[in-house]
């Protein structure tokens, strides 16, 4: 029984991303970003957020974030973060550090369970999630998302973490059909499903659109069903410079070059700010399609290397 006749596509083109963003999130609202650390981050979508000059955003993510958040801060899009860890793993995030130290953004003190518990509560449609695993840390003294609560069965004191409902979630996955059924081929799906189920609107970039028949042939592999997805866009290497396994690996060289540039700016090096803004101009503002972006970061030769690295794992 084939009943896709007449069904509306959720696929949008790269050129439509900007309008989709400005239609679904305003300055000052809560934006969620999928992926984890240096993989599965929707960088092509994040760059469009910068090009649309969205301002004063509140940013939340799966508990581990880094490059994209730092770039958004460097570009002046962020007012507040609700991010447990902000790191490039082998080094700190320069623009995050600089902005928090200068007091130009507010980095709320949260941890993994407050963020994941908040997504979980929102996804489940309840106002809070109980958490019993916090003791002794200063994080819980400053965490704005939590309150004490008493278990009505045991009488024990524990915490409630508040439901988190982002205005918009940006995610990246490897495959989807045009109706918005998402499939992660990466071993890790991070918090992407939870974020999709908790956000008001969900936009997903994928490496490849596949036929709906392919999705239906393996339904248990659909990681996010279409009912949680509002739009899907095919962007080859859309996660670059983060990785999209098993398709392409992490471009550590690009991330390191960015970090060196942003760290020089943080340290007040001569031309530091100019060089950082030149990075943003060259790799974010100027390339208004993915082809010109890829050309700006090493083109086919570099992408082939990242594909080969992923295949060798």
């Amino acid at each position, binding site marked *: 029984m084939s009943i896709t006749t007449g069904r509306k596509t959720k696929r949008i083109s790269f050129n439509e991303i900007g309008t989709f963003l400005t239609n679904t999130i305003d300055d000052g609202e809560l934006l969620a970003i999928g992926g984890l650390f240096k993989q599965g981050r929707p960088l092509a979508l994040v760059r469009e957020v910068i090009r649309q000059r969205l301002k004063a955003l509140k940013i939340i993510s799966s508990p581990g974030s880094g490059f994209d958040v730092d770039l958004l801060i460097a570009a002046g899009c962020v007012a507040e973060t609700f991010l447990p860890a902000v790191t490039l793993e082998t080094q700190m995030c320069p623009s995050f550090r600089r902005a928090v130290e200068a007091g130009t953004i507010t980095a709320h003190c949260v*941890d*993994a369970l407050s963020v994941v518990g908040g997504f979980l509560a929102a996804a489940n449609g309840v106002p809070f999630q109980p958490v019993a695993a916090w003791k002794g*840390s200063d994080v819980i003294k400053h965490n704005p998302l939590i309150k004490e609560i008493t278990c009505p069965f045991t009488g024990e004191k524990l915490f409630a973490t508040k439901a988190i409902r982002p205005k918009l979630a940006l995610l990246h996955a490897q495959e989807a059909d045009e109706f918005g059924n998402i499939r992660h081929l990466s071993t890790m799906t991070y918090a992407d499903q939870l974020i999709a189920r908790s956000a008001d609107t969900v936009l997903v970039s994928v490496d490849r659109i596949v036929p709906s028949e392919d999705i239906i042939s393996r339904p248990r592999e659909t990681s996010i069903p279409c009912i949680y997805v509002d739009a899907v866009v095919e962007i080859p290497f859309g996660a670059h410079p983060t990785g999209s396994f098993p398709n392409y690996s992490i471009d550590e060289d690009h991330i390191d070059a960015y970090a060196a540039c942003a760290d020089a700016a943080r340290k007040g090096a001569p031309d530091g700010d100019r060089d950082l803004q030149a990075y943003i101009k060259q790799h974010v503002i100027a390339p208004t399609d993915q082809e010109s972006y890829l050309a700006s970061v090493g083109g086919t030769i570099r992408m082939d290397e990242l594909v080969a690295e992923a295949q060798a794992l």
Partner: protein
Amino acid sequence: MMTSSTIRNSQDYTPAEMQAVFLSRDLTDGELGAAGASAAIPMAAMLLARLKHAPNLSIAGEMFVNPYPKQLWSSMLDDRALGACEAAETFLELFAHSHRGLDFFFHNGMQIDQYGNINLHHIGGTIDAPIMRGPGAANISYAVTSRRFYICTSVHTKRTFVPKVDFITSPGYLQGPESYHAAGLKYGPKYCVTPLAIMDFAPQTLRMRLKSVHEGVSVDDVIRQTGFDLQIPEHVDITEPPTADELRLLRDVVDPKGLLLS
């Protein structure tokens, strides 16, 4: 900071290898544990333990179950570092693991104090107006719920080993027995493992205590690099060096690219 010249037999093994080998010996067959991000030494320790004496050691709690990496990476929390595994989990399961606890976990910090508290948030100022803002920590719960944790750092200096952390990201023994019990804590750090030495915690005071120094390191070296009054017992051992078999498994199977050698 440790330099290679302080190691007598630097040609034999590196401090990082010593740390991995020491930790591996302390992991017991059948236990369940995990390491976080940026955890090459802990991952090496778990993999070596599985090869050597703990084939039923389970690695889970960070969104994958029982990884089989082909090599070590400086990050150990992505597909690249994972290689293959027996099952994928998500943050939903991490939420559960964080409550139910693991047998062991590993922590690192910008600051580590004499009670094993760990700071990854800020140095100087306040959390709202820090002089230096750190990365924060993804998961602060394993320090509370895991039956024990290890502090494993590649940096042993007075800047890192401070009397009192500026911010407690993950609790060790807080300010000693009274505050530790008052906070309802039940577990804590077992060993602090650095390129210079192994430290444990004195049962009565819960303060950090030198246990052994690595080959070529003197007790004075450790004292000089530690920013608080480290407890020194009458007798300090030399850390039992890696055996030939341990080094062979580490280099041939766990770390064929020599990440811990560099």
